[in-house]
């Protein structure tokens, strides 16, 4: 899987499925929010 930051929805969906998370697999909304939060933090550093 290679992410190029070209398609927000697809990238977040893919990462939410693959990234290690304490959230259960069926909590996709929470897992997506965690991915968005992690990456958007980079903008504010």
């Amino acid at each position, binding site marked *: 899987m290679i992410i*190029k*930051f070209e398609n927000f929805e697809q990238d977040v969906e893919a990462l939410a499925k693959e990234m290690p998370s304490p959230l259960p697999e069926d909590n996709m909304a929470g897992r997506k929010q965690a991915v968005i939060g992690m*990456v958007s933090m980079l903008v504010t550093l």
Partner: protein
Amino acid sequence: MNEQERDALLQRRRMYFQDAMSYHPGQTYVPNLSFYVTWKVYDSDLKCKLSEAMLDYDLMAKLTNEFEERYGFDTFIEYSNRNQWRITELAGSSVYKVDDDAWSIQVTDFPTVNDDEMMEFAANPQKFQWEKCIPRKYPKLAAGVDLEFFKQLQKEIGDFMAFCQRMPQELYDNYGMPRCMDYKGPLVYCPAESIFSHYRGIKNFSLDMRRHKSELHAMMDAILPPAAIEGVKAAWKNIDNQHTQTALFDGDNVYLAHTVMNPKQFEEFYWPYIKVNYDILEEHPGISMRLFTEGSAKILLDRINDYRKGMLFLHLDVDDVYEIREKCPKAGIIGGMDTHMLGYGTPEECVARTEKLVKDFSVDGGYIFCENRLVSYPFDSNRQNLLAVCNWLRDYNNRV
């Protein structure tokens, strides 16, 4: 310091904080608040480079403990975690430039939203950040990164968060230092600050307030929707009125973007947001917060004069502490110690300034001793002067 000595010191410091925050005539104790940042690295006997300390959390922790061991501040505003350089290094950003020879950290004013994209940002900030801001700020990522990168990023952010938790805890455990801040509840953050610092940059933001007003308001509403402000108000309905016993302040606001605003622009783009916090706190007697204003605080004074006494403590930068006390008598004062004097003066001059501040402001109370600037560069301070000041203040507080 053994456990008994540590606990005794902790109790004394809490007493100092309570005395200052209650803002009463004849303040007995004056807390010594540290505004030292990267100067801690310069001063350390470990003699490491700035970049080495910024990339090594264990080293930074060691020299921060050494700093407190030497000077004995009552609490810190900054726990050596101001720059998240390890995270941006991993992602390949060149926005931070750390210069070991000049002992400086430069941060580039880097716009990530162009003039004609402000409404596109407002329509979907998360999507815009992902597809436009990240590739612009981190070109290495736009070339393509795999899952392993995101796992490393997750770990790096986790390590940074752990360091942020670790330092106040170590200083509490080792030296009986209470926290500077213990947030009593959520506060409204002015969205102009993130547009100024992260999206439009200082120059563009300054022009936007004249040329792109409606777009700027749209961006601000997208970053902080009105429903979020209502959420903050609702949360405070269930929060008690007692000042925290564990820290000096119950919250803070840091003002940076006001430095490029005139009073009319401040009224339009800043005050309506931040006023929400003060209106809430007005209804919570006992709660106090710190306001740090980069540059001058004068744009605020007429607006905060009507709030209750001791609710707000102004941490001043370039303003004269005596002038602000006269113009804004209900606000507590943090600061007054001139970093130029700490860097270039004599110990006698520094102690005389400290003594004058403490004695003058104790009359009416509501005073916390602190440096007037972030102490970063080698000549912002020197060890002999700082030791003289800290020792004098410790003796002053121990006299009772």
